[in-house]
C-alpha cells in the first residue's frame, strides 16, 4: 500500500529532526479502511445473486470485480492526494470550477443515458459521473471563498450572494440533467459550509425554505409527486409497483432481526429487492447481519464522521478547516440520507451509501477525497506535536 503510516517517530523528535511529511491520522485511516473492507465484503454478498443472474449463473463476482478495481484506483488516489498539501487546492479551486462546469455541460451534449438519465460521460474508455467531480469542486471552491471572504461572510453580499452565485453555476447544469439527488446533496453540503463560514443562519433557513418550495413545485411539475409521497407514506397501497421497492427494503431489514440471517444468507437479494447492491445495500446488511451488525456499521460511520470533523478542527489554517469540514460533511450527508431512505424515514432520493454502494466513480472519488482529509490531518499532527512541545 502506498500509505506508510508512521507513528510519531520518537527517535526523530529526540534527534530534533522534523520530517517534511508527518504521519496521517491513524484512527481515521483505520476506520476508513475498515468501512471500505466491510463495504466490499457486503457488496460482494449483496451483488452475488444479481451477478449470477446477469451472467447466466457463471459468475457471482461481476460487480465485486469492478468495484474492487475502483477501490484500488481510489486507494492509489487517496495515497497520492494525502501527500499533496491542502494549499494546492486553494490555487486550483477556480480552474476546477471551470472544468466541472464544462464537464457537466458536456454531459448534456455527449452524455450517455443510463436508466433514462443522462449523467454519464465517457473519457478514454472510462465511464464516470461528472457530478462526482462537481461535488468535490463545490467543496474546494466554497473553502476558497470562505478563506477569501473571511469575516465578511457575515454580510449578505458575500455570505449569501457570493456563495449562492458559485453554487448556481453548478446547480443549473445539474438541474438541466434533472439530477435531483446531486442537487439536493450539494445544496445541503453548501448550506453546512456556508453556516460554518459564518453566513447568518437566518438566511440559510430562508434559503432552505425557498429550496423546499422550489422542490415541491419542481416535483409536482414533473408529475410524480403524488406517487412518490404515497409510495413513501403508504407503500403497502401499491405493493407491486410504486410501493414495491420500499416494501422489499423493509422486508429485508425487518426479517434480519437482532442477529440477522448470517453473512451471505440474505433472501431478499435474490432479485426481490431492486438496487440491492447499490442504493439499498444497507437493507441487505440489516438482513444478513441483523440489528447488531447494522448498528456496528452505523457506529463506524459515526466515528469516521466525528473523527473527520476533529481533523478539520485541528487543521492549521482556515482553508484546510473548511475544506475538511466540507469533505466529511459530504460523506455524512450521503450516509444519513441513504440510511433514511432505506429505512423509509425519508422519501426515495437515489443517494448511494459511501464505501458500500456499487459505483466505481463514487468509491474512487470518495476515497480520493478522504486522501485530501488525510493530507490535512498531517499538518494537524504536526501542530499537535508542536503543542506538546510547548
Amino acid at each position: 500500500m502506498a500509505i506508510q503510516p508512521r507513528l510519531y517517530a520518537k527517535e526523530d523528535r529526540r534527534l530534533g529532526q522534523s520530517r517534511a511529511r508527518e504521519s496521517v491520522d491513524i484512527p481515521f485511516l483505520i476506520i476508513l479502511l475498515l468501512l471500505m473492507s466491510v463495504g466490499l465484503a457486503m457488496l460482494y454478498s449483496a451483488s452475488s445473486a444479481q451477478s449470477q443472474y446477469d451472467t447466466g449463473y457463471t459468475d457471482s463476482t461481476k460487480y465485486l470485480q469492478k468495484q474492487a478495481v475502483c477501490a484500488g484506483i481510489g486507494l492509489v488516489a487517496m495515497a497520492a492526494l494525502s501527500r499533496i498539501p491542502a494549499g494546492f487546492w486553494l490555487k486550483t479551486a477556480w480552474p476546477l470550477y471551470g472544468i466541472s462546469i464544462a464537464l457537466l455541460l458536456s454531459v448534456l451534449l455527449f452524455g450517455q443515458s443510463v436508466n433514462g438519465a443522462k449523467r454519464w460521460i465517457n473519457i478514454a474508455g472510462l465511464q464516470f459521473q461528472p457530478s462526482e467531480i462537481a461535488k468535490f469542486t463545490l467543496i474546494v471552491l466554497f473553502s476558497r471563498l470562505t478563506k477569501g471572504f473571511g469575516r465578511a461572510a457575515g454580510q449578505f453580499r458575500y455570505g449569501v450572494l457570493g456563495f449562492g452565485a458559485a453554487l448556481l453555476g453548478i446547480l443549473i447544469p445539474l438541474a438541466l440533467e434533472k439530477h435531483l439527488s446531486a442537487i439536493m446533496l450539494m445544496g445541503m453540503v453548501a448550506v453546512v459550509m456556508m453556516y460554518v463560514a459564518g453566513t447568518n443562519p437566518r438566511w440559510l433557513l430562508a434559503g432552505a425554505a425557498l429550496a423546499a418550495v422550489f422542490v415541491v413545485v419542481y416535483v409536482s411539475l414533473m408529475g410524480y409527486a403524488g406517487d412518490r409521497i404515497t409510495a413513501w407514506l403508504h407503500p403497502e397501497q401499491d405493493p407491486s409497483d410504486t410501493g414495491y421497492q420500499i416494501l422489499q427494503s423493509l422486508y429485508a431489514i425487518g426479517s434480519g432481526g437482532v442477529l440477522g440471517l448470517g453473512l451471505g444468507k440474505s433472501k431478499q437479494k435474490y432479485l426481490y429487492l431492486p438496487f440491492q447492491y447499490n442504493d439499498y445495500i444497507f437493507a441487505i446488511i440489516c438482513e444478513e447481519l441483523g440489528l447488531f451488525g447494522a448498528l456496528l456499521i452505523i457506529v463506524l460511520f459515526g466515528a469516521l464522521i466525528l473523527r473527520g470533523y476533529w481533523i478539520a478542527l485541528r487543521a492549521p489554517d482556515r482553508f484546510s478547516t473548511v475544506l475538511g469540514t466540507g469533505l466529511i460533511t459530504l460523506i455524512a450527508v450521503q450516509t444519513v440520507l441513504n440510511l433514511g431512505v432505506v429505512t423509509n424515514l425519508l422519501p426515495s432520493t437515489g443517494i448511494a451509501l459511501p464505501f458500500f454502494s456499487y459505483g466505481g466513480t463514487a468509491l474512487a472519488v470518495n476515497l480520493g477525497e478522504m486522501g485530501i482529509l488525510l493530507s490535512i490531518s498531517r499538518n494537524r499532527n504536526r501542530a499537535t506535536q508542536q503543542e506538546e512541545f510547548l
Partner: protein
Amino acid sequence: MLPIESKWKGRDKMEKGRKKQQYVRLRGDSGQHRRILAVAIVLGIAAFIPIGLRLYSLMVSDYSYYANLALRNQTRTTAVTADRGNIYDRNMNILACSVSVENVYLDPHELKQSKADMEAISQKLGQILDLDPSWIQEQGKDITKRYKQIAAKIDEETAALIRAYINEYDISGIHLEPDTKRCYPFGTLAAQVIGFTNASNTGSEGIEAAYNSYLEGSAGKVITTKGNNEMDMPFSYEHYVTSRQGDSVILTVDATAQACLEKHLEEAIAKYDVQNGAFGIVMNVKTGEILAMATVGSYDPNSYMEIADPETSQQVEALRQAYLSKQEGTQEYETAKKAYQEARTAAQLKQWRNRCISDGYEPGSTFKVITMASALECGAIDLNTHFFCSGSERITGRSQLLHCWRSAGHGAELTPQALQNSCNIAFAHIALKMGGQTFYDCVKNFGILEKTGIDLTGESKGVFFDEQIVTDTDKWGTASLTSGSFGQTFKITPLQLVRGIAAVVNGGYLVEPYVVSEVVDAQGNTVLKQETTVCRQVISEETSKTMRQLLQSVVEEGTAKNASVAGYSIGGKTGTSEKIDVFDENGQRVLDKIVSFVGIAPMEDPEYIVLAALDTPSRQTGIYISGGVMAAPTVGAVMEELLPYLGVKQNYTEEDAAGRTVIMEDYFGQTAAQAQKLLKEAGLTAKLQGSGETVTAQIPAAGQSLPGGSEVILYFGAPAREEQTAVPNFIGMNRQQASDAANKAGLYVLVAGNNSVDLNVVVTEQSEAADTQVPVGTTVRLVFADTKAAD
C-alpha cells in the same frame, strides 16, 4: 507544486525556531470552531439516532411481522393438480374422462414492462383464438393486474400455435397454464345421470356432483422458497404436500342398455309427436341397480351451456338478438337482457334436470299396481272380489262424479279384470275397502313418502296427500282417497314408482336404487363398494307371486298387449295420466297427458323393470293417446332388444314358435339327409328341388333371420329361383292377412310387438317399405300393435 512544497518546508524551518504555531491562532476563531462542533454533533451523532430507533422498531419490535411478510414474499406455492377420476359404465366403457387443455392469460403488468406491442399481439391472439382483438387489447390494459384470462380450456394444438408465436417474437406477458377438461365420449348418453363439471372442474350435476369428493382427488402443492424471476436460491427449502389422484367411479348403468332406452324413447317422441320430452328407467328389480336412466331431450355435457333443444335454442337466440338490438344502457336494454338471461338459465336448468329423480309426475294407472298389491296384502280384497263398472259412479264423500276411462263401463269384473281393464271405479272401491288409514300406511310402506335414497344429487320425493286428507274421510271426504287409488291428484318421482313396483314383483322387498357399484382408486383398489340395500319387506312372497300373475295377464289379455315380446313372459301396467296442474294462458286446464308403461320381465322370476313415459303426445297424429298404444310398445321394443343382450333366457311357448327367430345356416355341399336333420334341429322345414347329391343353392341365403317353423328351399343341382318380388303394404293387416300376403309374395315374416292373434292387433310398421323390389325369400319384420288398446 514546487512553490508550495518549498513554502511548506520554509514554514517548517521557521517553526523550528519559534514555537508559536497556526493552530493556536486558529483557535481564536471560536465562532467557526463552535459551528463545526455543532455540525459534527448533528451529522455525526444526532442524525443517526432516528435511524437507530427506526431500525430497532423494524428489526426488533416488528420483527415477526416483517419476517412473515418476507417469507410470504419469498415462497411460491405451486399447486399440483390431481387428475379427476373417470366414470365407467358397468362394462368399463369410459363415460367421462379428463383431457389436458390449457388456459391462456395475459400479465398486463409484464406486458407493459416489456413494452410489448399490444396491437399486434391482440390481432394475432384474436386470430388464433377466434376472439375479438379489441377485447383482448382491453384485457391487456389493466396494468395493476398480473392475471387476465383470455381463453379457457383450449386444446393442445391451439396452445402450440400460441406457444410458437410467443417464442417467435420473444414476448413476455402471455402465459399458458395447464388445465384439464372433462370429456364425455358418448355425448348426450345418460347426460343427466353423469352430469358435468363446471369451469373450475368441480362436479355440478349427476354423478359428477354426487361423487365429486371421490372423483376430484386432492390437489397437492409444492412450497418452495425461490428467488424472484424463478431464480434458484441456495438457502431455500421445499415442502411437498402430495396430491391424491381422483378415484374412478363404476356405474351400474350399462351404456348399451342406456342407448337402447334412449333410442326407443326418441323414436316414440318422433312417432307420437311428443311435445314435452320423455323419460325412462331400467332397473334390476332384485338389486336396485339402475341399468339405464334417461331423460330425453338431453343435452351434451361436453358443451353443457349450449341449449340442446333446437326450438328452445332458437327462442333464446331470438331473445338475445332482441336485447342486442336495443340501445345499451337504456331501461329497455336492461329489461330485454334480463329476459334473455332468465330464459337461457331456465332452459339450461331444464335440460340438466334428471326427471327420473327430480320431478314428480302423476303416475296414473301404473300406481294401481301398488294399490292392488296393498289391498291383496292386507286382505281387503282377494282374487274373487266382485266389482261392477258402469262407466261412472257417484261415490259417498266425493262431490265429483267418478268416471272410468271407458265411458261405456267394464261391467262386472273380478279382481284380475279390474287390473287388466285398469278400471278406475273398481280401484276406487278397492281403496274404500282398505280404508284411508290402511291405504296411507301401505303407500308409506312402499316408500312413496320418502326419497328412494339413490346416490345422485337433486332427488325429490314428490307431493303426496297429507295423512289426514286421506285417512280422515269424515272430514275431508273420499275424493283424495279414491283418486289416489288410481294414481291421480298426487305426484311422485318416476324412480319412486319403479322402486315400489319392483317391490311388488320381487317378492315384496323394497330396495334402495343405486347407480354406482364401485369406487376404485388410481391403483385399482376398491374404495367403496355398493351392494343391494333392502329397506324392508312390504308385501309377502305370496302376494308378490299373485301380483306377478296379474301383471302378466295385463300384457297377455289386458291393456298392455302391445308390450309383449316373443319368447319372453312380460308383465306390466299401463298408465295415462292427466296433468291437472297445468293451465293454459286462459287459466283453463290443458289436460295434457303423460302416457306411461311399466314393464317387468321375465315374469317367472322377474329381473328387470322398465319404465317409459312420454310427456304430452300430440293430438295431431290421430293416434289414440294412451299408455297402452304409445308407451307399451316402446317398452316392448326396449325389452325385445335388451333382454337377449342382458342374457335373459328366452322361453318360447308353442304359440310363440312363429315369432321365434332362426338364423339360416349355410347348407352348401351337404346331402339331403344331413341338411334336413340340421334344419329340423333349427326348427325349420325344407322343400327339396332338383336331383343332385348335395345342396347347390338355398333360399334364403345364409345369415338371414326367419321365423321359426318356416319352410326353406334347398336346391340339389337345379337352378335357384332368382326372382325379385315387390313387398306388399302390410300396414293395417292383421296376423292372418299379413301371413297370406307374405306367402303370396314369397317372403318370410318376422312378427314383433303384440303377438296376440287378435283382430285389433295390426301391423304398424314394416322393415321393408311397400313396393320395394326384394329377392324372393327375404324376411320382412312386421311390428304388430293393438291400436285400440287403452289406458
